[in-house]
């Protein structure tokens, strides 16, 4: 077994472990299958060896898929930037507002508020502008309107303004729903931490 790769660089432990397994399998028919090496490895080193073996399974991904996933990851990271005091403040505001009051403030039905709270928002069924709804929702939680608008526009995809007009697509509504879902999940996580 060589201790260097094809370009002459020393092999990593992960690569050596993968080689070891490969060699033992290739020699399987020669003996009784007893492992020949006394090498030891940590869990992390075993993981790395498997990662090295599985690197060959990479497949090209669709451009649309990659763009959409990147946007979702960006949104998630944006939500992570909300500070703990900000999130706690929002959560307190949520606690002090009843569903009926929130529904009145948002000019939507109570059941839609319920859907907002759980993140399962059928926005595409409601004749609402996603940015407007998100801004109104955050504003109703006691956050300054300008701050709410900035946060919303940051969280929503950086699409050209016309996309958020009355002709907004289903995708725009889905993105807005995704934003609210992420924020709601963050709030829930904070509450779990707070309650533990």
């Amino acid at each position, binding site marked *: 077994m060589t201790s260097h790769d094809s370009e002459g660089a020393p092999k990593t432990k992960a690569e050596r472990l993968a080689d070891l*397994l*490969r060699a033992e399998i290739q020699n399987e028919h020669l003996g009784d299958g007893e492992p020949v090496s006394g090498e030891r490895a940590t869990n992390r080193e075993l993981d790395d060896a*498997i990662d090295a073996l*599985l690197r060959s*399974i990479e*497949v090209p*991904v669709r451009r649309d898929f990659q763009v959409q996933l990147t946007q*979702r990851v960006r949104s998630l990271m944006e939500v992570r930037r909300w500070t703990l005091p900000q999130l706690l403040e929002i959560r307190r505001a949520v606690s002090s507002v009843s569903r009926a009051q929130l529904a009145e403030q948002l000019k939507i039905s109570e059941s839609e508020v319920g859907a907002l709270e759980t993140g399962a928002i059928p926005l595409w069924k409601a004749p609402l502008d996603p940015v407007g709804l998100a801004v109104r929702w955050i504003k109703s939680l006691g956050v300054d309107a300008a701050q709410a608008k900035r946060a919303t526009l940051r969280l929503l995809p950086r699409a050209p303004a016309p996309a958020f007009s009355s002709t907004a697509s289903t995708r725009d509504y889905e993105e807005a729903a995704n934003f609210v879902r992420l924020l709601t999940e963050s709030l829930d996580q904070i509450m779990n931490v707070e309650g533990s």
Partner: protein
Amino acid sequence: MSQPLNRGEWMNDDELIQALINGDEAAGVFLVSRFAPRALGYCRLIAPDVSETDRELLCEKAVETAVDKIDHFDSTRGSFPAWLRGILRNELRAWRRKSIPVTDIPEGGISVPTNERASDQEDLRAEEVVSELLGQLAVSDQLIIRLRDLEGLSYGSIADALGVNEAACRQRHKRAVERLKDLADSRQTPRPKGGSQ
């Protein structure tokens, strides 16, 4: 003058994860470009019966979950790709549970378990024991068992990844499992004399 390094080239996995935890937006972009192709490839191997659209959805959910729970990732316990594959397997299990068509279950087709289900604590103990026993096996035995039983790869996929014969893979795995069973048997405490069978 030397060329500036592309961040995607110099950043290893651990640095990338730390950047992600620190809120570096570029890290999110690199995360997707680095791991989405691997996650999708892995998903094709473990879920060949699932449509490509659903596999993309599963990968999307797994990456989202990984980013969301990134603070819980512990690099001393394993690598990030292994952690992501674990999340993906959980997403696949959840998806399969949801996707079971109820109408396909034949009348009387569900067997009622006769024994009481082991408690979570017993499950945890069993996991610890298996994990401890696995650690006593040779490295190559541990690798083949992990690839087949933890990562859920078929013998064909393992053979492809290693560039070896599928039958030899099957045989090597069988022997590794036998050695694990031997270890488990030798570990069992002897029954007290006169005890019930």
